[in-house]
């Protein structure tokens, strides 16, 4: 099973890649990162670009932890992110989510930038990007552009990336100290998320700081960001769940009540349906996995569970 014929070009810097995109402005051009969405699609889904520009830019394969934010380069693989001490310390949800993508071999090749640019409705990282309030970093011939994750995903395979533009990285504000979790029901056929829920929950404890008394539920939720993937045509935040948690103690009752809101923001007819799971079943999974993500996040706020 071969892809159709195409011309292959390698770009060894961001500017070279942008030049090549501009040069082929009239052709059907695809960027090649890990190739683990593009190559299968070129074999079986009739994606037949004229030109493939292989991004071979070492500078984009990097994790850069700053004071209050961590920037992950577009070409960083899931395996690198999952193992990165810096990511685990500053945005542990992202490391946990990366470790849930596909399988060991996929994690060795698939990239953060490719995952977000592909915008598969069941992809894992978009949920983490939304729950951490990340910003997607883009480059085009005119300069740089930043798009909040909440505005980046536009539909199945559709993003804010414009023609001729390159995704160079993602900026994650630090969420260390918050409870976090990614709970995924793996699709049995594809490996993507049938439904996945990512949560980051911060609480106001009495003591504050890290001198907490380890008292689970000893504080109220000051901010919660909860996002779902797999349920509809793109990853989405779940504002009703977030709203239900705000100001509440993070205990079993409030988690149940919040998870029960998981479907409130999604029109039933938008729920994805396939031979493995009807839209209705996905809706039920959404509640269950929202509860699981929040329970695990609550344990981590209390310091009972290990980090990613």
């Amino acid at each position, binding site marked *: *099973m*071969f*892809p*159709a*014929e*195409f*011309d*292959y070009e390698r770009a060894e810097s961001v500017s070279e890649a942008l030049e090549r995109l501009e040069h082929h402005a009239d052709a059907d051009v695809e960027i*090649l990162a890990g*190739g*683990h969405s593009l*190559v*299968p699609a*070129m*074999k*079986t889904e009739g994606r037949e670009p004229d030109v*493939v520009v*292989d991004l071979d830019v070492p500078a984009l394969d990097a994790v850069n932890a700053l004071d209050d934010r961590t920037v992950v380069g577009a070409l960083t693989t899931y*395996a*690198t992110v999952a*193992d*990165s001490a810096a990511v685990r310390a500053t945005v542990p949800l992202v490391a946990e989510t990366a470790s849930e993508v*596909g*399988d*060991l*071999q*996929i994690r*060795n*090749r698939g990239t953060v930038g490719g995952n977000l640019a592909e915008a598969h409705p069941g992809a894992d990282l978009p949920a983490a990007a939304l729950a951490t309030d990340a910003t997607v970093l883009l480059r085009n011939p005119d300069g740089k552009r930043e798009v909040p994750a909440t505005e980046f995903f536009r539909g199945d395979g559709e993003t804010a990336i414009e023609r001729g533009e390159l995704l160079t990285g993602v900026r994650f504000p630090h969420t260390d100290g918050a409870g976090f979790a990614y709970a995924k029901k793996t699709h049995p056929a594809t*490996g993507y998320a049938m439904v996945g829920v990512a949560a980051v929950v911060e609480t106001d404890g009495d003591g504050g700081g890290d001198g907490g008394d380890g008292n689970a539920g000893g504080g109220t939720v000051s901010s919660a960001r909860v996002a779902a993937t797999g349920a509809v045509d793109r990853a989405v935040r779940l504002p009703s769940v977030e709203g239900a948690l705000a100001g509440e103690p993070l205990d079993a009752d409030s988690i149940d009540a919040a998870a029960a809101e998981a479907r409130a923001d999604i029109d039933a007819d938008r729920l994805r349906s396939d031979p493995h799971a009807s839209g209705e079943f996905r809706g039920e999974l959404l509640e269950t996995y929202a509860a699981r993500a929040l329970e695990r996040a609550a344990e981590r706020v209390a310091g009972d569970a290990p980090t990613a």
Partner: protein
Amino acid sequence: MATHDITLTVNGTTEEATVESRTLLVHTLRDELGYTAPNVGCESGKCGACTVEVDGDAVKSCTVLAVQADGSEVTTAAGLADEGLDPVQRAFHDEHGLQCGYCTPGMLATTHQLLDENPDPSRAEIRKALKGNICRCTGYGNVVDAVETAAGRLREADDESGDGPSDGSADGSSASGAGPDGRAAPPEPGAED
């Protein structure tokens, strides 16, 4: 359409090939260069039969363009052994971790990376690592046993070799049967970060 001259180091041997843009790494290895350890199964990146190590990482070679791999070191399952069976291969043999053997080269390549990074994996960690390697005939119980056995033997060999070079028979047990056609010593596994 354009062709590309590429160089690969396969199981320690430098190889050159001329490939089309669309040629997949697995086809270059098998059809052009004769390294038949990686098998072609699903061709869609799911089954793992085509797994080889590229610069120390287990990779599904049906989902990588050959031209992308230009300049890389590739190790196939046959290249994991120096001579005879290597401890992982021997453990698959001893524990009946295969039936038809179609999935085995891929299983071996993935196991090799797992044990490089985690010499003492739990059964759950073994299962997670082998998630991308599908076996159609033997079930996974014996495969997990085999990886566990291999890990134990490699750790023992490591302990023993602490005070001197070992004689190469890593676990001290007798090798059964002839080994695969190992062409050369595998490259040093790349340090991960």
